[in-house]
């Protein structure tokens, strides 16, 4: 389980989980689950397109998530945000269908990009992965306060000259970067689970924003480690464990919040 190849995979998965947890904190408090689902999913045809053109996969994924950001933010200004997200997503997937009809890509590779299988990560992949992870985390931390305020109330943000529209675009850029980090390693659908599950548990465990962000990253990393170990032991797909653990995380968070509120009202009544 811990030979060289596996060590690389563990490192890569940990990086991915950390990024997903940090970015996911804002995905959850901004209520942007759909965008976080759509960006990775619509970026995955980018990998196919890159193979078709003959450039690095990462470039294709970055380009397609860039299109996704542009589509969601531009169309979102003209109408409902969820409609904008859905239509940008299907347009990019449609392009994916176009590219796939041109390639002889193995279904197995497509399946892995979609449903996630921690793919073999070579030592040479680690450096760009680490760099990109550092950039996404640094950007999220740099934008921490304006992002937080505009998530609580766009109007309050605008009052102190933080444009909610600019923050929305920057937030989508951060999600796109996280996507580019994670997609080649764990697949589109897994990234998404890692973004929403751990963060939704973290937000109920603490009432401090910065602590919430770090707890989210920690839960995300533990989720990935546990999933890899369980998947290794049972030979079942890792996607199943990540999905199930994320759902458990969400339910545990809701239950914890409920218990807390019950306890609080009991305490108030007893006084």
């Amino acid at each position, binding site marked *: 389980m811990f030979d060289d190849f596996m060590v690389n995979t563990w490192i890569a998965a940990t990086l991915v989980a950390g990024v997903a947890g940090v970015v996911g904190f804002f995905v959850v408090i901004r209520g942007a689950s759909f965008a976080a689902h759509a960006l990775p999913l619509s970026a995955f045809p980018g990998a196919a397109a890159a193979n078709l053109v003959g450039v690095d996969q990462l470039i294709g994924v970055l380009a397609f998530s860039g299109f996704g950001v542009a589509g969601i933010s531009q169309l979102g200004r003209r109408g409902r945000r969820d409609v904008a997200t859905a239509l940008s997503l299907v347009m990019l997937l449609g392009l994916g269908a176009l590219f796939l009809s041109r390639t002889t890509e193995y279904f197995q590779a497509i399946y892995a990009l979609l449903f996630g299988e921690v793919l073999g990560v070579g030592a040479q992949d680690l450096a760009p992965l680490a760099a990109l992870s550092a950039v996404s985390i640094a950007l999220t*931390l740099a*934008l921490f*306060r*304006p992002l937080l305020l505009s998530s609580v109330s766009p109007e309050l*943000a605008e009052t*102190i*000259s933080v444009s909610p529209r600019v923050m929305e675009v920057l937030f989508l850029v951060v999600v796109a970067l996280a996507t580019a980090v994670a997609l080649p390693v764990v697949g589109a659908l897994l990234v998404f689970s890692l973004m929403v599950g751990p963060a939704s548990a973290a937000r*109920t465990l*603490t*009432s401090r924003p910065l602590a919430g962000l770090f707890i989210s990253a920690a839960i995300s990393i533990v989720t990935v480690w546990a999933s890899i170990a369980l998947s290794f032991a049972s030979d079942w797909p890792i996607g199943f464990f990540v999905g199930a653990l994320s759902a458990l995380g969400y339910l545990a968070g809701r239950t914890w919040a409920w218990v807390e509120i019950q306890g609080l009202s009991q305490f108030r009544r007893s006084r």
Partner: protein
Amino acid sequence: MLTRSEVLAVRQASVSLSGHPILKDIDFALNAGEFCGLIGANGSGKTTLLRTVLGFVMPTSGSVTMEAGGRASIGYVPQKFILDPYMPMRARDLVALGLDGNRLGVPLPSRGRRRKVDEMLEAVEATPFADQRIGSLSGGQQQRVLIAHALIRRPRLLLLDEPLANLDIRSVAGIVALLRRVSRELQTTVLLSAHDMNPLLSVMDRIVYLAHGRAATGAIDAVVRTEVLSRLYGYHIDVVRVHGRVLVVAAEGEGDAQTAIQRDPVHVAQVP
């Protein structure tokens, strides 16, 4: 332009939203430290006027002039504040974001910052619940936290949009007294919108009364009068003073006036 004592001057400003004229020829100015009530029924344009002062909406004609500093010297408490009960944020975090929410980077622990936040929480009497989640606070408590958020930058002008709606009588009196005190202490000009002027009568230096997109402005006694309000509404309205109260009544048969008055809860006003 502004005279020496003026903080804000709105001159002949008209505002349209989506092509519909909402406000016409609004004209008033506020002096430093003044407390002004912006009174009008639902849909009369209070929020729109405040957003125009903030620069979120541009006037189609006329001008809005702010003292040096522009938006940076305005504090704002919005009408709608939708709170996620799970938002991981304490009251003090929101107040701190009023101070440096537009800065990059994570907030590092700083004694100066903490002191400022504590002082502000103390000033709005929010210290007892400073470490609670904002989502778990009551309406009145949230209102205090939002006021602290707006005041922590020591703005010259504080705009509050219906801060008294949804509060019980005691909380209303508490918030009004708080605002009056803070505005005196910090020399902050306050422009506060409300559909009911009653709780504000004792503290207002000036009133901007909105109806049908126009405004009557001045001291309370100069505005809440039969001639002035009749001219504003466009039909006859009686301002009757009974037992120290003011009743604003439309004539029988004035169908339009009746509905206007019914929609307008500001029909009973106490003379200060």
